[in-house]
């Protein structure tokens, strides 16, 4: 129940990768014929990724995952366009790979606007427009949020950015395979991808860079990726990444329908059996597999541990689990008080889940929350506590 953290690898993906560990281990940069297989593996993957997002293969640049893609997009554009301006517009609910990159750029003298979101976690394109100045070079707003699953109006934001001649980057790490992406229609100039969120390998990702976009490299060295990203390619990872994105985008609608039905039953069941619960995120514009709750009077890390004792994996925005002093920036940005951000629980379904898993969570979770509420001094004595045996 924590598929937003990472996914298992599909057997088809493992099968596609296998030969590249053993038979086809050549370095794609080598000239001899033996290396051609590796080169072809990488180029096939490039076509697969391009097809999945409506891009040209030449615009796909492989790298080591979502974090690198975000760093590259933001630092690369900021540095390459420095003489045009030093201002970036992003949102308050981005992944840390974006936020910490922006904070680093601020320390280097750039200025960054962090747009607020509404109670459901949506960025208003009108706010983007208002934030853009003649010094703005980049707008970066994620396609879908990893904690609360809110999907952003990407096409509208892309339009606004382009109306003002500003480049638009989107972190689509959580969106791929769940939201149909078309970089043309959505007016996206740069887009971050990561393999391990859609049944592909970890440590393999890509940055889509629209043809003609001015961007600096992050990794200097050899001439791989047409001189844009040095380092001998992670050939098996890239091959698996390509196969995984092909599978993940083959039938997005059918896949979503199936997952959303399970998710909705889970949410209904939890709301019906656990009082004083709120659902975080957008009622409609949200990832089909994402459910995020706040259970009043209890703390998230303790929920996770009791669920873990029952063999259920989940995650929380509580500060107590991250070791930081503040609960999740996303939950605070949608206006949750600290206490409710502490009591948050994220359940994200995936291809490994069945209706039985939903039944099992519905059986275990009320008992877990009830048990913790009995321990909590915040639980009002009149509060209806779910039955605990």
């Amino acid at each position, binding site marked *: 129940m924590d598929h937003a953290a990472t996914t298992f690898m599909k057997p088809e993906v493992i099968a596609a990768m296998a030969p590249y560990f053993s038979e086809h281990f050549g370095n794609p940069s080598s000239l001899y014929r033996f290396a051609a297989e590796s080169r072809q593996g990488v180029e096939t993957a490039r076509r697969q990724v391009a097809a999945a997002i409506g891009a040209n293969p030449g615009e796909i640049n492989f790298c080591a995952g979502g974090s690198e893609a975000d760093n590259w997009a933001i630092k690369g554009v900021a540095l390459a366009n420095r003489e045009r301006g030093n201002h970036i517009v992003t949102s308050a609910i981005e992944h840390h790979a974006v936020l910490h990159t922006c904070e680093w750029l601020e320390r280097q003298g750039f200025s960054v606007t962090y747009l607020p979101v509404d109670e459901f976690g949506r960025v208003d394109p009108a706010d983007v427009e208002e934030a853009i100045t003649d010094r703005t070079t980049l707008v970066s707003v994620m396609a879908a949020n990893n904690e609360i699953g809110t999907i952003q109006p990407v096409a509208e934001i892309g339009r606004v950015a382009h109306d003002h001649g500003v480049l638009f980057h989107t972190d689509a790490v959580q969106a791929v395979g769940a939201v149909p992406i078309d970089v043309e229609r959505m007016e996206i100039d740069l887009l971050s991808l990561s393999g391990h969120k859609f049944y592909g390998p970890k440590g393999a990702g890509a940055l889509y860079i629209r043809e003609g976009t001015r961007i600096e490299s992050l990794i200097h060295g050899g001439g791989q990726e047409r001189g844009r990203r040095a380092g001998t390619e992670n050939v098996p990872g890239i091959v698996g990444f390509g196969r995984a994105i092909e599978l993940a985008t083959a039938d997005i609608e059918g896949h979503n329908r199936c997952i959303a039905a399970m998710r909705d039953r889970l949410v209904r069941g939890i709301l019906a059996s656990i009082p004083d619960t709120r659902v975080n995120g957008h009622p409609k514009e949200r990832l089909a597999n994402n459910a995020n709750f706040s259970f009043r*009077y209890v*703390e998230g*890390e303790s929920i996770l*541990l009791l669920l873990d004792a029952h063999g259920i994996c989940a995650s929380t925005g*509580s500060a*107590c689990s991250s070791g930081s*002093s503040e609960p999740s920036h996303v939950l605070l940005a949608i206006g949750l008080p600290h*206490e409710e951000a502490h009591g948050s629980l994220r359940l994200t379904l995936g291809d490994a889940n069945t209706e039985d898993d939903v039944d099992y969570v519905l059986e275990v979770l009320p008992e877990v929350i009830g048990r913790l509420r009995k*321990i*909590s001094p915040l639980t009002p004595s009149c509060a209806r506590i779910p039955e605990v045996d």
Partner: protein
Amino acid sequence: MYTEKVITEFTNPQYVGELADADGVGEVGSPTCGDIMRIYLKVEEDRIVDARFQTFGCAAAIASSSMATRMIRDLSLSEAWDLSNADVVDALGGLPAGKVHCSVLARDAVRAAINDYRTRRGLEPWEAGPCECCGGAGCGSHPENG
């Protein structure tokens, strides 16, 4: 990341709940993450005859407060006052570094309850010395020390 003892104490806390006729109640909250711990004492002839707790917080906080209530039963008030957070950590078989402040919270809750008892009796509250967990350097549990 947690020891077996922490998990056992957390999943089977023994002395949970409110003592309606408590002689002393201590409530503390950690500024580090906004968690709350309450300890109730029943005292007879300077001895703790019953101790209960309620905690809103992580597994370490729940296990620490549970362990603390277990350890201070049958102790005299001054013995209970001397219970250190390190004693609680040891009894739990250790806590991860980032969770030590949760055990400090348990010690502080015990002390707050003892002072509540003393104040109710018209006695001077006892003063806490420098924190042995951080020597006053700031373990995140004493807002006055930053």
